[in-house]
């Protein structure tokens, strides 16, 4: 047992340990998406022109809007932690709610983006992709896998934030004990981090 001195509530709970646990999990997520980015990198170098052509098919406006939305949502989540630390419960609740709203808008955008692509015959195993150049098939395959996996993480992150919202509402998250909200926030920031790299690699390919 380590012998550093803790006071008050954190004597019964291990706030630092919980945070470290979350970070360790985040590292596995980084490697998970990192592996997918390795795939992207290798095939981009092999099929550069096909990737450029594929990138042109993606809608930049959607990409920029989604990027901005996630950045704002990360700000909101960070602000909610400041609010909890300052004992400002209402601000915390509104901030978390704001992040959830941003996440919902992101998912709606994704629905329209994918819907449009599918409608014009671009989806995994579609005839258009199978008959077309290999590089384009790979580009869109990676697009669907990476943004799909990312979308699943948005849903998980929103669930986590919603749980944290409930605990803040119930008064269980306090200025001395907020690892739950902090960890939900960390997970959400990771989802934002991944998108920060997805956006230029898929939407701004030249």
């Amino acid at each position, binding site marked *: 047992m380590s012998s550093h001195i803790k006071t008050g509530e954190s004597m019964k709970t291990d706030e630092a340990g919980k945070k*470290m646990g979350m970070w360790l999990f985040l590292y596995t997520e980084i*490697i998970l998406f990192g592996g997918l980015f390795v795939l992207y990198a290798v095939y981009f170098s092999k099929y550069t022109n096909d990737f450029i052509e594929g990138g042109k098919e993606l809608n930049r406006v959607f990409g920029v809007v989604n990027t901005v939305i996630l950045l704002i949502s990360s700000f909101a989540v*960070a602000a909610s932690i400041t609010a909890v630390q300052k004992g400002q419960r209402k601000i915390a609740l509104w901030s978390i709610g704001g992040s959830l709203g941003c996440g919902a808008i992101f998912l709606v955008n994704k629905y329209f983006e994918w819907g449009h692509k599918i409608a014009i015959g671009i989806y995994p195993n579609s005839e258009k992709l199978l008959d077309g150049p290999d590089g384009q098939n790979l580009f869109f395959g990676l697009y669907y896998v990476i943004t799909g996996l990312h979308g699943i993480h948005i849903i998980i992150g929103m669930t986590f934030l919603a749980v944290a919202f409930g605990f803040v509402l119930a008064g269980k998250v306090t200025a001395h004990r907020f690892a739950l909200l902090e960890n939900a926030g960390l997970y959400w920031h990771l989802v934002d981090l991944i998108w920060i790299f997805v*956006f230029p690699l898929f939407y701004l390919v*030249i």
Partner: protein
Amino acid sequence: MEKNDHIFGYRTLFAVLLALLTLTGLTVGASFIDMGKLNVWVALGIASVKASLVLMIFMHLKFEGRALILSFLSTVFFLAIMISFTFWDIAFR
């Protein structure tokens, strides 16, 4: 010792958001200028700056202890090896 004594003010957080939005604009702007092979690297460079801001401020890494900082850097190091060694491999096939 608990390092959670540090609180980021709303103004700081908002300033970081503005910086992130500006960098996003920069990335989009740069994508309209044809720099050939350099474009990808510029885009990744700007993305890395954005990521650093999110990590240091929003995710609080700037004020975390050694265990967190070292373990995070190790992960990045591992990622760097995973990516660069893969390239090293395919470059010689």
